[in-house]
């Protein structure tokens, strides 16, 4: 049963990945990635990573993909498959594409040799013994305990990184003025809070501060 499920999910994972790489419309690429992510969550479940699978579906296939769909709809992704230069009539185009595919194939062979040729005895097995339970391997309780004890620093660093990324995303995507530069008068600096009000105005010159 689990091997049947594995092959179904693996076909979904790989076909979703192929779809992302070769589909012409960016919108379809995002949909192919959703198929890929959900199939990948099934593989995670087969590997007893229940919490990671749930996070994968909720955060990745839910939130991140919605962000992608919004941006694709906003930008209006112009259809390009492998690019005109790559699919164009010139011999250089197909050469570049072929080069990319050869490079990817070489990378695949290298990875397979590195991963499967290690001679680790555990690779051929089905993994460590597993017994179901409330605090078993991969459950939310197990992951939460690890995150709040052994990996507390990593947890905090990740949350800090998320804050930085959220602020950076807002700053990058905010609407700019027509002129490009912001008016100096509108920018509130710390100096303005320290100075008494009316500093540098004509009223100060005649000795009448408001």
């Amino acid at each position, binding site marked *: 049963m689990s091997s049947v499920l594995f092959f179904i999910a693996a076909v979904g994972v790989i076909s979703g990945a192929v779809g992302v*790489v070769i589909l012409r419309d960016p919108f379809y*690429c995002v949909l192919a990635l959703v198929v890929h992510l959900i199939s990948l969550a099934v593989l995670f479940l087969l590997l007893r990573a229940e*919490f990671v699978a749930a996070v994968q579906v909720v955060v990745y296939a839910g939130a991140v993909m919605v962000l*992608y769909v919004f941006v694709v709809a906003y930008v209006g992704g112009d259809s390009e498959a492998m690019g005109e230069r790559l699919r164009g009539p010139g011999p250089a185009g197909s050469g570049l594409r072929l080069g990319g595919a050869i490079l990817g194939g070489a990378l695949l062979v290298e990875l397979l040799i590195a*991963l499967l040729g290690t001679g680790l005895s555990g690779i051929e*097995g089905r*993994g460590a013994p597993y017994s179901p339970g409330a605090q078993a391997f*991969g459950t939310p309780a197990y992951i939460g305990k690890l995150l709040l004890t052994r990996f507390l620093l990593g947890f905090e660093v990740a949350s800090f990184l998320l804050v930085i*990324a959220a602020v950076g995303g807002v700053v*990058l995507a905010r609407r700019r003025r027509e002129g490009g530069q912001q008016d100096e008068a509108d920018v509130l600096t710390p100096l303005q809070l320290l100075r008494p009000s009316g500093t540098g105005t004509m009223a100060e010159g005649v000795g009448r501060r408001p």
Partner: protein
Amino acid sequence: MSIAWYLAVSAIVFALGAIGVITRRNPLVVLLCLELMLNGANLALIAFSRMWGNGDGQILALVVMTVAACEVCIGLGMIVAIYRRNLPIDVDEMRELQG
């Protein structure tokens, strides 16, 4: 299924993502292919975690997901900023750093 099958799938997904990053020109799709590579790495991490019966790999996979979410946030913000400036959305055209 033995762990080797999962590792093979993760290697295939990683290589496909690398091909996409090399050959595609739309930065949105390049980001999607980057996600593929991260997911391939995540699958390998979780497979090894299962192999040893140790939760460290799953924690690292969660951290990778966090970093991927941050990367998507910044990358999409940059794409929106590029679009607002009416520049072409194409990685070949965007090779100069000057605004």
